């Protein structure tokens, strides 16, 4: 990685605080994500992981502190400009809509369209590429309410890719997917991250996928940063116990030899 790219983080959070209904959700969170990095955000339920993502794309407002994308505070962008820089894949379980997969993906070209214009040939090419990359070209004309959860999640990934942003935020994108769909999903993420240099910030509960796929792990607990560092340093019993209040152990995979995280039998 050359020196220039490391100078300005793609995403920079400084002293981020968020309160909802008088309850503190995020408390003094700072985090810098380098361009081309794959960051996994882990932590117990209710730690503020989803809210952190939603602050970045301005779904949630009213936070304090600073959030900047490519070195510019996100307050300086219009929503449309921000949409060209940051794309988002929400949690599984979105609404069933009668739009087809292709329409859904094409609609994600919105921030690139001039006012009132319909998507053009260029936008259609982006949509077809994204459909092909995620392997759902054959489902393109099916409406979303006829697709399975895993297929639908791939459509939302394809849409986020068609949005052509350099920063991709994903909120537990693969939590409810079967092993095959999950691995498809991870493969696509790896491709866009490694080959296209798209920065990936992924909230996940799958610790083993996180340590395998991510360059860095960021752990949140009760709205505060509890750990930030490379996967090897995260896979330490004390660290994981501190984050999750639960005992884990690591064993080596019988065929690959890679360390695998297991919950310790008998609870905490």
């Amino acid at each position, binding site marked *: 990685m050359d020196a220039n790219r490391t100078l300005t983080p793609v995403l920079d959070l400084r002293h981020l605080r968020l309160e909802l209904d008088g309850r503190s959700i995020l408390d003094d969170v700072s985090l810098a994500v380098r361009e081309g990095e794959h960051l996994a955000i882990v932590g117990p339920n209710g730690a503020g992981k989803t809210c952190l993502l939603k602050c970045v794309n301005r779904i949630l407002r009213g936070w304090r502190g600073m959030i900047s994308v490519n070195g510019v505070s996100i307050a300086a962008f219009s929503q449309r400009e921000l949409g060209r820089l940051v794309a988002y894949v929400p949690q599984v379980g*979105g609404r069933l*809509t*009668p*739009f087809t997969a292709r329409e859904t993906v094409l609609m994600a070209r919105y921030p690139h369209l001039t006012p009132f214009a319909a998507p053009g040939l260029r936008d259609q090419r982006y949509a077809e590429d994204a459909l092909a990359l995620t392997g759902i070209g054959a489902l393109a004309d099916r409406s979303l*309410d006829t697709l399975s959860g895993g297929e639908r999640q791939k459509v939302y990934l394809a849409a986020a890719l068609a949005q052509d942003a350099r920063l991709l935020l994903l909120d537990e994108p693969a939590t409810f997917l079967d092993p095959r769909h999950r691995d498809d999903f991870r493969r696509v993420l790896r491709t866009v991250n490694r080959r296209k240099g798209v920065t990936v910030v992924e909230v996940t509960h799958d610790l083993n996928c996180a340590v395998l796929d991510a360059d860095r792990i960021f752990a949140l607990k009760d709205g505060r940063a509890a750990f930030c560092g490379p996967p090897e340093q995260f896979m330490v019993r004390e660290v994981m116990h501190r984050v999750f209040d639960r005992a884990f152990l690591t064993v080596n995979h019988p065929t690959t030899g890679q360390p695998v995280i297991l919950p310790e039998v008998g609870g905490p």
Partner: protein
Amino acid sequence: MRRITILGLTVLVTAAVLVAAPLLGLETIDPRQVAGGAGAGPEARIFWSLRVPRVMLGFLAGAALSVGGLTFQALFRNALATPYTLGVSSGAALGATLAIRLGAAFSLLGIPAVSLAAFAGALLAVALVYGLARARQGCSANIMLLAGVAVNFSFASLILLVHYTSDAAASFNILRWLMGRLDTVGPDEALRLLPLVAVGGFVALALHRELNLMSVDEELAVSRGVDVDRYRVILFVTTSVMVGGVVAACGPIGFVGMMVPHVCRLLIGPDHRWLGPMSLLAGGAFLVACDVLARLLAAPAELPVGVLTSLLGGPFFLWLLVGRRGAACSA
């Protein structure tokens, strides 16, 4: 069938309805008799000063109700949401009822007091619902719908109360107003409605991409770059004013705003780029056609057109709920 074909057919049917409607009625008029303008005899006068304005008013009202319903279904992601659900019609009805009960007979700029009171009532109700939902920060779609339902119930009982204390003549006028009407003399009423419908219709049709994204999911729309807060207010205000104007002019004509967008969605799909123009045309044509039926069915008397639209709308809606559950639930 391709969407362009369906929209083309809608244009043709609408054109046919608009041409045929003013010729039909208690007396069928020969097109050759009216070619010379309003001065060419009694048929020409009926045609130009009664029937054509009536068709204009019906088309504008139907188009506005339909596009308004479509917009609110997308904004609230709810198959049952229309401006009426949010209190526009009950607010207007309360305003009109009060004006009739109090015998308000003045008019301002040619607009009768009852219409003015109805328009004010409609806007007041919407502002009330919006304010109530706003007070609980965030103004989520569900809270607004529930606030609308609550306001509707309160206003409905206030209308009954005012109605109950009225004398026989006022009582009849209130009842007649509540049934909805399209009879009009001269083009003034239609022309007054035109700017409201033009603005409201243009905004809803121009914002088809935003409506598409917002109809799927509001948070996702934000992440795609839609300034949801801004567009929601723009769409909400222009639609409410437009539909408020329609109710003030024609009374609370029911079901057009709810059922026409659903039928169009079944035929042309969920993309607002196509759905918007089709709903506008189909809504206008449907109300004009209902009005012709209302004039013909009980001739020489006239059925109130609002009664007819609801009479057709009720069973249709049940069919939609029971028979086409999937399509109906995914507004």
